[in-house]
C-alpha cells in the first residue's frame, strides 16, 4: 500500500507540471509577445480619415488660380445591397446594365463589408438624378470630395497635378500617406505639398466582430480634426502669364519674368503648354497618354528644364566681369574686321564695324569685341597662367547662377552646363588656353543655361549687382509667410559702378537705331535688353531676348526663348516687349512698326516633323539639342569611337575643337 500511496505524488506532480505548461504559454502570449495585442487593436480599432480641403493658390493680385471643386463618388457596401432596379441605376449613371453588374462584382471582390468605389466622379446631373431615387438602392451612398480646378486653364506645367499616392510615396512618407490618399506629383503641387495638403483628421472607431461601429475609441481622445491646407499666394501675374501663353501659342520655348527687387516670378510660360484641368478628372490616364504622345513634349517644364546656349545674351555678363576684373574699361575699343582670329580659326561677326567700343559692342552684339574681351581676361596673368585665370573667371561667372540650380520652388530644376577647368584638363591635358574655349565668351559652345537662369541674370543686372532667389510662391498661409531664403541678396561680385556703361549698351540695343532689338521699343518705357541668336544645327536658330524695364528702378526682368525663331530681334524681343508693356501699363498700345499680339500669337513656329516614324528623336533634338551642340562632348564622343570612323575630321585633340568651330560659324550676330 505504501508504494501505491507514493503514486499520489505522481498524480499531483502531473497536475503541477501541466499547470506550469499552461502558465508558460500564457506568459509567452501575454507578456513576451505583443503580436496578440497588435492583432487585437487591428481587430476592433478602425481609423477613418477625414480629408481636408487642399489649399487654394492665388496670383499676386489675389485672383484665384487654383481652387477646389466638389465631385461625387458613388460608393457601395456589397453585403448591404438588396436586389434593386439595375436599369434605373444604370440610367441615372448613364452606363449600361452590364456595367452595373460588373462594377458590383468588382466591389464584391474588394470587400463585402466595407464601402468601396462603385463609380468615381459621377457627373453633377447623375448626382442630381441619383439623389431623388437613392432610397431605392440600399447599400449605395454618395460621397463627396474635392478635386483641383483651374479657372483660367493656364500654366499646366507650373501647378502640376495631384494624384493618388504610389506605394513608393507611402513608404517615403513614413506613415503619413495611406493607400487612396492624394499627393502633389509635380509642379507647385509637389513642392508645396506639405503646406497644401493640410492635416488629415482621424476618427478612431471601435467595431465589433460583425463590423458594426460601436462608438468612438477612448471618447475621442485620440481623434484629430482635419485642418485645411494653407492658402498660397503665387508671385505670378495672371495677366502676363495668360498673354505669354497666348504669344507662345504654336511655338516651342519659354518665358520667364522676374520682379528684380524681390525675385518673384511674374510669368512662367512653358510652351507648348496644356490645360491643367485635364489632369483632375477620371480621364487622367487618357489625357496623360495623349500628353506623352505629343512630339513637342509639353511635359518638359522648359523654363527650368530646357537648357539653351545663352548665345549673345551672355555678352553683358561678359562685359561686367571684364570690367570688374580690369581687363577692359568702359572706353576700351577693339577693331572688328568682321571676324575674330582665335589662333588659326575665324569667329565670324555679322558686321564690319571697325573700331568699336563696349556700349556699341553690346548694342550691335559684336562677336569680335567679346572675343577680344575674353582674350584679355584669360591672358591678363600671362599666357602660362591661362588655366588658373580661367578658374577665376569661372568662379566669377558662376556667381551669376550659371551651371547651378537656383533653387526655385519647383521640382526637377536643371543646372545647365558650365565647365570648370578640370573638365578641359581631362580632355586636353594642360595644353589648352583661351582659344580653346573662346566660344564661351559669346555664350556658345560648352555653356548652356535655363530660361530661368537667363531671366535671373537680367534681374541681377537690373538690381545693379545682386539677385534674390527666384520663387513662385510669395506668401504661405493667412499670415503670408515668406521663406527666409527669399529675402537674401545674392551678390554677383561686380561693383555697382560698372553696371551703368553695360546697361547703356543694353539700352542702345533696344532704343538706338543701330540696336539689334530696335523693333521692340516700347513708347514711354525704357527697356534695356540683349538679343541672342542661338545656333541650332537641327533647323532654324533659336530666338532669344533678355531684358528689363524700366531702366531706372526696374520692375520686370525677362527672358524669352522661341525655338526656331531665328534672330533674337525677330520673335523673342517683340514678345518680351508685349509682356513688359502689359505688365507695366496694363495695356498694349499699337506699335509704329505694326507688330500686334495677335499676329505673333498666330505665327506657327513649330518645327516640321521630318521623320514621323521617330518623333522622339526629333523632339529631343529640338529642345535638348544644346547637349548636342556642345562641341566638347562631340569631341569626347568622337575620341571614344576613335578618329578612325572619319565621320568627323578629328585628328589631334586641341585641333579638333578648332576644326569644329571653324566648320560651323556658330555665331551669327
Amino acid at each position: 500500500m505504501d508504494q501505491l500511496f507514493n503514486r499520489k505524488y505522481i498524480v499531483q506532480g502531473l497536475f503541477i507540471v501541466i499547470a506550469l505548461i499552461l502558465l508558460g504559454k500564457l506568459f509567452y502570449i501575454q507578456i513576451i509577445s505583443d503580436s496578440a495585442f497588435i492583432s487585437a487593436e487591428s481587430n476592433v480599432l478602425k481609423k477613418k480619415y477625414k480629408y481636408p480641403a487642399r489649399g487654394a493658390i492665388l496670383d499676386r493680385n489675389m485672383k484665384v488660380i487654383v481652387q477646389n471643386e466638389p465631385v461625387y463618388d458613388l460608393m457601395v457596401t456589397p453585403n448591404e445591397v438588396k436586389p434593386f432596379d439595375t436599369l434605373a441605376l444604370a440610367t441615372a449613371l448613364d452606363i449600361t446594365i452590364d456595367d452595373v453588374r460588373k462594377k458590383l462584382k468588382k466591389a464584391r471582390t474588394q470587400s463585402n463589408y466595407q464601402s468601396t468605389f462603385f463609380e468615381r466622379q459621377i457627373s453633377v446631373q447623375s448626382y442630381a438624378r441619383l439623389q431623388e431615387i437613392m432610397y431605392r438602392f440600399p447599400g449605395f451612398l454618395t460621397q463627396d470630395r474635392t478635386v483641383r480646378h483651374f479657372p483660367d486653364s493656364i500654366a499646366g506645367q507650373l501647378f502640376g497635378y495631384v494624384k493618388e499616392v504610389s506605394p513608393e510615396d507611402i513608404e517615403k512618407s513614413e506613415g503619413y500617406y495611406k493607400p487612396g490618399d492624394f499627393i502633389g506629383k509635380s509642379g507647385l503641387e509637389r513642392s508645396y505639398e506639405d503646406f497644401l495638403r493640410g492635416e488629415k483628421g482621424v476618427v478612431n472607431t471601435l467595431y465589433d466582430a460583425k463590423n458594426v461601429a460601436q462608438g468612438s475609441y477612448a471618447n475621442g481622445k485620440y481623434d484629430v480634426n482635419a485642418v485645411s491646407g494653407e492658402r498660397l499666394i503665387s508671385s505670378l501675374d495672371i495677366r502676363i502669364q495668360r498673354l505669354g501663353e497666348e504669344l507662345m501659342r504654336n511655338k516651342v520655348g519659354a518665358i520667364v519674368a522676374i520682379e528684380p527687387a524681390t525675385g518673384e516670378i511674374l510669368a512662367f510660360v512653358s510652351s507648348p503648354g496644356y490645360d491643367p484641368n485635364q489632369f483632375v478628372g477620371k480621364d487622367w490616364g487618357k489625357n496623360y497618354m495623349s500628353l506623352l504622345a505629343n512630339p513637342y513634349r509639353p511635359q518638359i517644364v522648359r523654363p527650368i528644364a530646357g537648357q539653351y546656349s545663352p548665345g549673345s545674351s551672355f555678352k553683358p555678363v561678359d562685359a561686367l566681369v571684364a570690367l570688374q576684373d580690369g581687363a577692359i574699361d568702359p572706353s576700351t575699343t577693339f577693331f572688328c574686321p568682321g571676324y575674330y582670329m582665335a589662333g588659326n580659326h575665324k569667329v565670324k561677326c555679322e558686321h564690319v564695324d571697325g573700331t568699336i567700343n563696349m556700349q556699341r559692342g553690346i548694342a550691335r552684339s559684336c562677336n569680335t569685341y567679346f572675343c577680344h574681351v575674353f582674350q584679355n581676361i584669360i591672358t591678363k596673368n600671362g599666357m602660362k597662367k591661362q588655366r588658373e585665370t580661367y578658374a577665376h573667371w569661372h568662379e566669377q561667372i558662376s556667381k551669376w547662377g550659371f551651371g547651378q540650380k537656383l533653387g526655385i520652388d519647383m521640382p526637377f530644376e536643371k543646372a545647365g552646363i558650365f565647365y570648370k577647368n578640370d573638365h578641359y584638363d581631362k580632355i586636353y591635358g594642360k595644353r589648352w588656353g583661351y582659344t580653346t574655349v573662346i566660344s564661351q565668351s559669346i555664350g556658345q559652345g560648352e555653356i548652356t543655361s535655363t530660361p530661368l537662369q537667363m531671366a535671373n541674370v537680367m534681374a541681377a543686372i537690373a538690381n545693379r549687382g545682386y539677385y534674390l532667389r527666384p520663387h513662385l510662391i510669395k506668401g504661405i498661409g493667412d499670415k503670408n509667410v515668406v521663406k527666409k531664403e527669399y529675402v537674401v541678396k545674392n551678390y554677383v561680385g561686380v561693383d555697382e559702378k560698372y553696371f551703368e556703361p553695360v546697361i547703356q549698351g543694353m539700352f542702345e540695343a533696344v532704343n538706338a537705331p543701330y540696336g539689334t532689338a530696335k523693333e521692340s521699343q516700347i513708347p514711354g518705357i525704357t527697356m534695356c535688353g540683349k538679343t541672342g541668336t542661338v545656333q541650332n544645327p537641327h533647323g532654324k536658330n533659336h530666338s532669344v531676348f533678355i531684358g528689363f524695364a524700366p531702366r531706372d528702378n526696374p520692375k520686370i526682368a525677362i527672358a524669352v526663348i522661341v525655338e526656331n525663331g531665328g534672330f533674337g530681334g525677330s520673335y523673342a524681343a517683340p514678345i518680351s516687349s508685349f509682356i513688359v508693356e502689359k505688365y507695366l501699363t496694363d495695356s498694349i498700345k499699337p506699335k509704329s512698326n505694326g507688330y500686334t499680339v495677335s499676329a505673333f500669337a498666330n505665327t506657327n513656329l513649330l518645327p516640321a516633323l521630318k521623320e514621323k516614324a521617330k518623333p522622339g528623336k526629333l523632339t529631343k533634338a529640338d529642345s535638348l539639342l544644346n547637349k548636342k551642340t556642345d562641341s566638347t562632348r562631340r569631341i569626347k564622343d568622337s575620341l571614344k569611337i576613335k578618329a578612325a570612323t572619319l565621320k568627323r575630321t578629328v585628328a589631334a585633340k586641341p585641333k579638333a575643337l578648332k576644326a569644329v568651330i571653324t566648320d560651323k560659324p556658330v555665331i551669327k550676330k
Partner: protein
Amino acid sequence: MQQQQGNRFFFNVDWITVLIYVALCTIGFVNIFASVPPEQSAVFGFNTLYGKQLIYVITGLVLGLSILLFDGRLFNVFSPFIYGGTLLLLMAVLVIGNKVAGNQAWIAIGSFKLQPAEFAKFGTALLLARYVGAFNPKFRDFKTIMIAGLIVGAPLVLIMLQPDTGSALVFLAFMFPLYREGLSGYFLLIFLGMIVLFVADFLVPTYILIIIITAIAGLFIYNNRRKQKIIFSTILVTVFAIAYLFLIKVAYEKVLAPHQRSRIELMLGLKTDNRGAGYNVIQSQIAIGSGQATGRGFLQGTQTKYGYVPEQSTDFIFSTIGEEWGFLGCSVVIGLYIFLLLRLVNLAERQRSTFSRVYGYCVACILFFHVFINIGMTIGIIPVIGIPLPFISYGGSSLWSFTILLFIFLKLDSNRMGFF
C-alpha cells in the same frame, strides 16, 4: 444533542474547498457578465446569460449544501442506480435529444435543458469507487481491468455516439484513480506513447518514425538480449506501435469529422485558417494575449465586448479572463484550480474508505482534465475540444454536475472517520 451533532457535521466539512468553489463560481459570474454585449449588461435581467448564471450559481450552492445533509452512505449504496440512471439518460438522449451544433447531447424539459453527459461523470465515478472499494480487486488481473474498463467504457461509447468527443475524452481521466489503486503505470505510458505517436505522425514522415521506433526497440533488445520475455514483449510493442501508426492515418481520414481534422491540423500548426476553423482559436489567443500582464480591466476588453471570440461565455470564457485580467488574473485562476486539485488529492488520501478515496481521485482527475483541456484549447496548445471550464463556464448542467461531483466528495470527506 441535535445541535451538537450539527456543529460537528459542519466542522467536518472542508470549508476551504467550499470557499474555493464559491470563488471560482464568482469569477465565472463576473466574467460571463463581462462577456455579454454591452447593451445586455446595461439592465440587469434574469433572461440574460449572467442573470441565468446567477440563478444557476445560487441553486448550485443550495444543491451542494443539501447534498451535505444526505447520509454519505447513500451514495455508496445507490451508486449502481445512479450509474444506471445516467446510462439510461445517455441512451434516451440519443433517441429524444435535441440536436445542438451537430451534437445530440441535450434533453429539453420545457425550457430547461439537461446534458446527461455531464451527470454521467459522477455516476461513473461513484460506481467505479464502489467497485474498487467493495471488491478490493487486484489490478494485475485481467478481469479487474475488464470490469473497470466496462464501467468507464459504457458511458464513454454512448457519449461518443452523440457524438460528443470532448466529453468522452474526459472519461480517460478515470485512468488516474485506477493507477492510484494499482493499475500498472505501463497503461499510462502506453497512453502517453499513443498521444506522442499520434502527434509525431503528423509532423514527421511515417517511415522515419518507423525507423526510429525500430532503432529504439533494437537497442532495447540488444541491452536485454538474455531476457527472452522482454525481447518478446518489446517486439510485440514495436509491431503494435507500427500498426498503430498506419491505423492513425486510416482512422484520421475515415473516423474523424472534417472539422475535427482541421482542428487538429490547426493545433499542430499544419495549416492556418484565420476565418474558418482557426477563427476561434486565433481570436481567443488574440484576446488572451492582448490582456498582457495586468489585463485591460473589468468590462474594458474590446475583443470580449465586441464579440470577436465565439462561444465566449461557455467554452471560451477563459479568453475573457485573459483579456480583462491579464497574466495576473490567469495565474490566480490556474492557481485556485491547482490548489483545489492538490487539496482534493490530499483529502482523498486521508479517507479511511477506499470508496471515498477512489471517488476523491475521480473528482480531482475529472476536474483536472476539464481545466487542462479547456484552458489548453483557448491558448492553442490543444485542439478545439468543446468542454466547459468547471464552475466558471456558463451553463446550468455543467455547473450543477460539477457541484454535485464535488459536494458528494465533501460529504464523504466529512464522514471520513466513519466506516461503510
